[in-house]
């Protein structure tokens, strides 16, 4: 069946059906993105200026992508004009350039911009723990390792946010390195953070060396599983079941030997001696002395402190500036106010030697009670990233859709470039309609770019 009015205008509307259809679709698209933009602007303006992230996106890269899309809008017009003028080679060439531009745009987004965000890490520090990370937050006047004020280029002491009468900053960022506390637990040790304190007390004193720990684990597994006591709360039931699963896991190949367990302890920054202190058996396990109980408690707290941390590469020591009143602009602005060499002497900083032999500094964030929330630069971290990924993702899908349509018209198939010989007017119409969609994609980006990258 032949679809009517695909090329010739309908007498009542004065337009060919595809033309009217695409304009109605574009109108609905404008409403969709208009609502999203309006919502974003509303949130942006409602937030205090210093609270909203600025400088997180790469402006030169965003500008490059804007130029690419504008250029592709011009080339699709050139393709359409060439087609109308029966210049087939020119038409094919400009159409090719158009979809290559589209794919290049997506390549930049998916190959660089989005993955770059996934490699970053951010954490919101609780108000009562700000002082612990002060060196990286820039609220107080900066001091070097010896406690002397850091001088600026004019020889005057550098001022932090409070001295400048700027609000305190609670956010800290860097390159994601490791989240120790979130590793799957292979040793029963790694299950400690999940076990209620009472249960931990039960464990202490049951094993006291690595050899004993293996023997103890095998004994435990050899027993038939005990039925769970009635009346357990959900966390207690979970912990009881979890311990047994962890026991099975830790007897798997890499943890069934003393060396394997020693290596695993090292991952948590512990030695065998630390373990011995942690799990030291009281002289009389039935009647531990107050001193022994105190020693156990301290050892346990020290252990939990060690295990329950996030290690991130120090706050972009090369690029970020924690004293910037707007934000740290991870990547693009040189940090010249802080003496990186003194970083290793600061609290909460660990020095490591990387695979290439270079020294790396890691910031240790104690997530147990000091962090509000934390994560990679993904939608869950904050509202800005949530809207950024949602809107650029939706726009990216439109770009992908446009590219697929253009490639379809470009291919030597019946509905594609073969149409040039069989129904030239139809092909012109198709390119026109697809071109209108492509211009809308460009038009949306014209709003996305300033809103997210610049403002």
């Amino acid at each position, binding site marked *: 069946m032949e679809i009517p009015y695909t090329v010739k205008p309908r007498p009542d509307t004065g337009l060919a059906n595809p033309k009217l259809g695409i304009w109605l679709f574009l109108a609905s698209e404008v409403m969709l993105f208009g609502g999203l933009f*309006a919502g974003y602007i509303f949130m942006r303006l409602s937030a205090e200026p210093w609270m909203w992230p600025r400088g997180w996106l790469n402006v030169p890269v965003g500008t490059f992508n804007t130029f690419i899309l504008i250029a592709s809008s011009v080339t699709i017009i050139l393709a359409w004009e060439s087609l109308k003028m029966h210049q087939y080679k020119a038409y094919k060439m400009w159409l090719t350039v158009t979809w290559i531009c589209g794919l290049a745009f997506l390549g930049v987004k998916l190959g660089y911009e989005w993955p770059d965000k996934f490699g970053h890490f951010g954490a919101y520090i609780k108000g009562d723990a700000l002082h612990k990370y002060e060196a990286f937050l820039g609220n107080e006047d900066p001091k070097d390792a010896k406690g002397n004020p850091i001088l600026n280029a004019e020889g005057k002491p550098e001022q932090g946010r409070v001295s400048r009468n700027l609000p305190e900053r609670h956010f800290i960022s860097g390159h994601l390195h490791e989240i120790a506390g979130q590793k799957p637990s292979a040793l029963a040790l790694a299950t400690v953070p999940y076990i209620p304190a009472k249960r931990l007390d039960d464990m202490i004193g049951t094993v006291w060396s690595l050899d004993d720990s293996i023997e103890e684990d095998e004994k435990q597994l050899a027993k038939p599983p005990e039925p769970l006591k009635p009346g357990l709360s959900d966390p207690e039931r979970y912990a009881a079941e979890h311990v047994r699963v962890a026991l099975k896991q830790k007897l798997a190949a890499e943890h069934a030997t003393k060396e394997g367990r020693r290596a695993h302890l090292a991952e948590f920054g512990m030695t065998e001696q630390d373990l011995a202190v942690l799990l030291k058996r009281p002289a009389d396990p039935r009647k531990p002395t107050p001193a022994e109980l105190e020693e156990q408690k301290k050892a346990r707290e020290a252990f939990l402190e060690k295990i329950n941390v996030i290690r991130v590469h120090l706050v972009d020591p090369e690029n970020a500036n924690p004293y910037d009143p707007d934000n740290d602009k991870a990547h693009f602005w040189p940090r010249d106010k802080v003496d990186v060499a003194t970083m290793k002497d600061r609290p909460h900083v660990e020095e490591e030697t990387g695979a290439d032999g270079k020294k790396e500094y890691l910031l240790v964030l104690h997530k147990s009670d000091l962090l509000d929330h934390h994560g990679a630069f993904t939608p869950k971290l904050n509202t800005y990233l949530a809207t950024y990924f949602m809107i650029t993702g939706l726009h990216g899908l439109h770009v992908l859709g446009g590219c697929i349509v253009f490639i379809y018209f470009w291919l030597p198939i019946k509905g594609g470039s073969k149409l040039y010989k069989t129904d030239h007017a139809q092909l012109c119409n198709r390119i026109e309609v697809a071109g209108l969609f492509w211009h809308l994609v460009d038009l949306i980006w014209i709003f996305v770019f300033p809103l997210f990258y610049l403002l």
Partner: protein
Amino acid sequence: MSEQTATAEHKHEPEAHGAGHGHEGSVFAHARPYLIVGVILFGATALTVGLSYFDFAEYSIFRRMFAVIGVHDVGINILVGLMLATCKVCLVGWWFMHLKQEKRTVWRPLFFTFFFVSGLFLLFLLAFSDPIPTTSHPIH
């Protein structure tokens, strides 16, 4: 492209010309206005980037000017950025999408779209004021 397409296509029937015979003249000559608009859009993009480094709220003349319409602080930069983006969008629509020669059948739904989207965008003014004063209850 517009209404012109259908009529233009009738003039350019492939059967009449043959697929392999191109029309005389360069496509660039026909597309000159589009190329000029493209260059303007490039320039406007560079201007947008440049203006983003300029803090309008630092200057009292801009503060006073925009305060008249209830826009302050970072809102000034956002409004200027949006106005510039709107100009670019108008160029794309008017030239690239050929709205300048489009029929009323197309303009009519677009008018409603424009009306509602403008309303949505103006919602941001609510970020600067509480339009419902009765929501505060100082005395209970």
